[in-house]
């Protein structure tokens, strides 16, 4: 219970600092009446919470699915597909407020379908090892095309595309928050329903089957739902790495490996982390802004290195 209160406190603190802090000074007394707070900071904070939470849950479930605690949702090629979609939209000057997110979303779904199809090699069974390799391959391929397009683009487009690829929540609005609020409950519920069988899957597919899990449908559901979450996150905020890797790890250290507690904790933890990271991205170089993916990478890569050493060191893994 103390752990949950601590996590809730962390989320609250992250939300408050995201709303209070910013390049424009807003007096505390004016917070509720300020237009900046109401139409910029609050929706942006909520979007950070939802995106970070989605990445945390997607990461935790995919790590159980591919049976590798160092998997990141973007390892499965979605970021490459989304990046290609977004860069195409930028290069082709597709207009409209939803052009970019939609193009990224479609790109992510395309990559997901391709990886999924490649993961089904040799029959009807989804092989998580093949899934990982297929994800890396599809990511590299789409990345190559993306870079080719960027290299041919005009300077202004190039900058836009490049910044988009590093993720950012500056596109946040009440509309994007609303879209996420409507969209993410379905994959979240699907993943939560898979929480207990995911515990079994950690023993291996055959032992999980013997304990009563329907392993094939389980793997498909988890892959599709986690990818849907990642695709939505990448569509509204670009590629924000390491949240889906680091957050499940830290929550595992505190909450253990039972997905029924791990998944909700990963949602809140991911939300809090992205909120803090986005606040840093907005405030640190004000009035300009860093892509938030740079902040999460600067924090995430050293942490990843520590975790990698720990994990590869043998003994108690986690």
């Amino acid at each position: 219970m103390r752990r949950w209160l601590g996590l809730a406190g962390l989320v609250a603190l992250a939300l408050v600092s995201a709303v209070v802090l910013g390049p424009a000074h807003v007096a505390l007394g004016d917070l509720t009446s300020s237009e900046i707070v109401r139409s910029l900071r609050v929706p942006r904070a909520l979007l950070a919470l939802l995106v970070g939470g989605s990445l945390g849950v997607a990461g935790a479930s995919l790590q159980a699915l591919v049976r590798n605690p160092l998997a990141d949702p973007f390892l499965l090629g979605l970021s490459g597909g989304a990046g290609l979609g977004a860069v195409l939209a930028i290069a082709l000057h597709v207009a409209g407020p939803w052009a970019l997110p939609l193009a990224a979303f479609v790109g992510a779904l395309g990559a997901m379908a391709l990886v999924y199809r490649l993961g089904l090699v040799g029959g009807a069974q989804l092989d998580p090892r093949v899934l990982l390799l297929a994800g890396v391959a599809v990511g590299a391929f789409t990345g190559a095309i993306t870079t080719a397009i960027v290299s041919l683009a005009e300077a202004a487009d190039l900058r836009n595309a490049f910044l988009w690829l590093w993720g950012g929540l500056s596109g946040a609005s009440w509309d994007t928050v609303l879209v996420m609020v409507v969209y993410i409950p379905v994959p979240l519920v699907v993943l939560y329903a898979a929480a207990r069988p995911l515990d079994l899957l950690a023993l291996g597919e055959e032992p999980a089957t013997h304990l009563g899990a329907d392993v094939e449908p389980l793997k498909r559901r988890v892959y599709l739902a986690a990818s849907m979450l990642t695709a939505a996150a990448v569509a509204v905020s670009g590629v924000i790495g390491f949240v889906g890797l680091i957050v499940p790890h830290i929550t595992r250290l505190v909450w253990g490996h039972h997905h029924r507690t791990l998944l909700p904790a990963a949602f809140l933890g991911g939300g809090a982390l992205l909120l803090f990271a986005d606040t840093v991205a907005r405030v640190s170089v004000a009035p300009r802004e860093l892509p938030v993916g740079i902040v999460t990478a600067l924090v995430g890569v050293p942490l990843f290195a520590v975790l990698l050493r720990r994990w590869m060191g043998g003994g108690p893994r986690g």
Partner: protein
Amino acid sequence: MSTAAPLLSVQRVTYRYPGASNDALRDVSLEIRAGEFHAVLGPNGSGKTTLIRVALGLAAPPPSTGTAEIAGRAAAAWSRRDLARIVGVVAQREDNLFPQRVRETVLLGRYPHLSLWGAERPVDREAVTRALERCDALGLADRWIWTLSGGEYQRVRLARALAQEPTLLVLDEPTASLDVRHEMELFELARGLVDAGGLAVLMITHHVNLAARFADRVLLLADGQTAAQGTPRTVLTRETVERVFAWPVAIEPFDGHPQMIPLRQLRQPREPA
């Protein structure tokens, strides 16, 4: 016991893996009833594990001929969840991706009894404690899995299968790489579950002699075919064992059970010094 309906019944199954040029199983039958300890023996690659997969409805595609039924219903027709309440399996291998404590991993055995959204109930915790007790592993409950010895680990995995509250236990080489004491403990434990608990046990093993002493019935497989089937005394004759394992043996009775002694292969007599 022989009049009771079989818990598990494999009838004249022939099975070939997709793309393979030989049958992995040919015309094999197997029946297990409550209160029976059934051992499956045979050389490496003789089809023992394939037989278990077919018997549990896990073979994909299903066998071309023959039937596999559990409690009177086609094995493949069971939902995995319903089947897991009847059959507990200790597979040859499993992973430990994440660190777990013994009680946690045994609690996973309650999965087929839990509802989708519901939490573990007191009855589940009691079943876990009971299963640990039966395997003499209650003292291990709070240990981390990775601190267990090989023998302790196997007892814990057996406890997890018992937490499923099955009527049939399937053990696939449970004593591989265990020392004498631990392998005897495991056979005694399995026999005790059959005698006291009325369970049926199906054990794949390489221990011809222990199978002869503990099992009620033995199926000896060779190249996917039944070499012999019946009580240990009828199955484990010198001729049969030598043919199946391609090695000269002597069979000596011990405690009323046939025991196999592998012979040294004939050599040129040494030059006298």
